[in-house]
């Protein structure tokens, strides 16, 4: 299938750190793609570059055929994003926040969409609570819901499972797999290799802003070969090189 995300020599520096270093990557539609890397390897920076939240210093980036730095708002209108850090605004309730995002995105059937997510992620009882009074996990659920409200064909999600309990992690993982089976594409950043191995179809390893490997999970994980061993070997090899 055609590439839905394409970068060419994508580079971003902050002062003297090169967070993303000449990354050339092409991801086909329909993948559940995992971007794996240790802390500080540049995953969040990649996410922000691909979604037009920051501008690259060099290189090109196209998402769904659009030049991202040229028209970031149009790109973001077409995709869903779960940011790594951000939480919903303190003084709206959970329900109000979903309606807020619905209005920003111009969703007409916002009521049904919001109801659907209260059910999937089981937080209907919290919908009238101010976001600042929600538990971290519930705020995270809300961020998951806001990203998929408009049923986007492509979603960028940065460590979305970290604050969720095992049951909710299962729910979200199942949702993502179904979503991809239904034609969606997911760009998933994580350093939790088990999750990647379980649900991703393809992956890349990022270290110090450089892509060390790009391939499918199936070709790698065979018998007792696992992602973890491969990941450690690659990252350590690169660190010593």
């Amino acid at each position, binding site marked *: 299938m055609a590439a839905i995300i394409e970068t060419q020599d994508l580079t971003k520096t902050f002062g003297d750190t090169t967070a993303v270093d000449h990354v050339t990557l092409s991801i086909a539609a329909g993948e559940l793609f995992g971007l794996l890397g240790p802390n500080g390897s540049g995953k969040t920076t990649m996410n922000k570059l691909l979604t037009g939240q920051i501008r690259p210093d060099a290189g090109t980036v196209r998402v769904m055929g659009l030049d991202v730095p040229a028209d970031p708002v*149009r790109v973001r209108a077409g995709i869903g994003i779960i940011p790594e850090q*951000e939480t919903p*605004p303190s003084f709206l309730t959970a329900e109000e926040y979903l309606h807020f995002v619905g*209005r*920003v995105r111009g969703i007409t059937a916002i009521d049904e969409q919001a109801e659907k997510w209260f059910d999937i992620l089981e937080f209907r009882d919290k919908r009238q609570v*101010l976001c600042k*009074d929600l538990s971290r996990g519930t705020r995270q659920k809300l961020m998951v819901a806001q990203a998929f409200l408009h049923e986007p064909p492509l979603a960028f999600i940065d460590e979305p499972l970290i604050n969720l309990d095992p049951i909710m992690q299962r729910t979200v993982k199942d949702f993502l797999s179904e979503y991809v089976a239904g034609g969606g594409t997911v760009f998933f950043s994580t350093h939790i290799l088990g999750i990647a191995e379980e649900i991703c179809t393809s992956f890349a390893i990022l270290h110090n802003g450089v892509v060390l490997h790009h391939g499918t999970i199936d070709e790698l994980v065979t018998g007792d070969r696992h992602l973890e061993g491969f990941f450690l070997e690659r990252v350590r090899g690169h660190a010593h090189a």
Partner: protein
Amino acid sequence: MRDLFVAMVKEEWRIHATMAGNLGFGLFPVMIAAFSFMGAWILPLFLEIVPASLLAFIVHAMFALMGVMVGSFGIMGREFMNRRFGQASLIAYSSRSLPLSERTIFATFVAKDVLFYLFLWVIPAVAGIAAAAPFIGMEPAFPLLLLVTFSLSFLEGLAVVFFLSTLYARSPRIAGAILAAGAVAVALASLAGIGPAMLLPPYAFLLAPGILPLAASLALIGIPAAVSIAWATIEYPDAARRYPNSFDGLSDRLSLFSRPWLTAKDALDLRRSEGGIAKIIFSFLMPLGLVWVFLSVLFRFIPGLSPLIVFAVLLGVISSTTYNWLTEFDTFSAYAFLPVDVRTVITGKLQSYGVINLVSLAVLILAAAAAGDAGAVVPAVLAFLSVSAYSLAVTVRLTGLYPSVMLYQVRVFLLYLAAISPALLVLIFVSILDPWYAAGSVVLLPAAWFLLDRAMLRWTAFDMPSY
């Protein structure tokens, strides 16, 4: 606790230095000193028109007013820990895990803020005067006395408002009653011919240094401050607050705006946050009331000026500072992952600003009624609207979505003054000739439009910092 204090000071410094650069921010007090040096330099000229005691009173009243504008710590509640920059990443927040009571953290936070203002404004102002002292024949020891009286004036304004806001957080009614009683007492005092020196003991201390005014000053600062620290409402019941959806109804009612959802969100932020509505009272309406009293007194000395016009002009500038709070509820990072750009968020803030300006307009109409100056109402309203729009446009052009941080950058602050003060001076000056000339201020409207347009372009192209 000392470590906590030092850490908070460092944090405050870094927040500013991140935006302004170490040098840009470090030069801020130097710039204030330079201004005060120039002011002191031309002091002999001023003294030909205005009696020295009046001038001294004005300056002390200004420092007290500054204290009033920044002193409403009592309504911050728990938010002092995380509201400043929209995120819970400040030390005050993370120190909840230290073995310190929330009250200790709060007291440290207040002390840090007070110190911040003293070092940034009061001390540099005195330093400038001290530097000019030899040239204007001022006794070399006099600036030392000023350092004491300026600081005390600032602290008096701050302590009184700290106390009122603390009371307000407990019971708005009692706070209102005390405020009203205070206003009546002041009015009676002035009828009885008791001078302003009684209200501002630091000023009385300047006129006649002695134990009594000093003790009165210290009492007026120490007692309210101590009571406030002890009483401030910091602990709130931890129950989750629930509300039925009022966002949609509000957005629908605001549908004449192009981005009603942003303004609806700002309105809910203002209404539901602990300091929200109270902030309008303490940081906006109260200073305005003081300005009005101050102008009415002052204008007995300068005939020909219409206090209403001057008030309208100042009201415009002061209104534009409410943009600072509107931008403190959130940072752009709360929108960065949605299909909106900086232009859209700024547009939303401008809409909210328009709504807040209705309050200012109401204040102006009240002032007009109080002044009984019917002839000046129309030019005053026009002057207010134009100045408000223009000062806001200058603020947005220079600081984008970060006014409270960016204005401490020397270059930005100078540009701000250079863009705003000439317009104000000309406006006030021509209004002396005829109040109707103030209506000419509408020429500021196209300027405001142009600046806003440039501002949107500039800040949309700017990579937002994240903290």
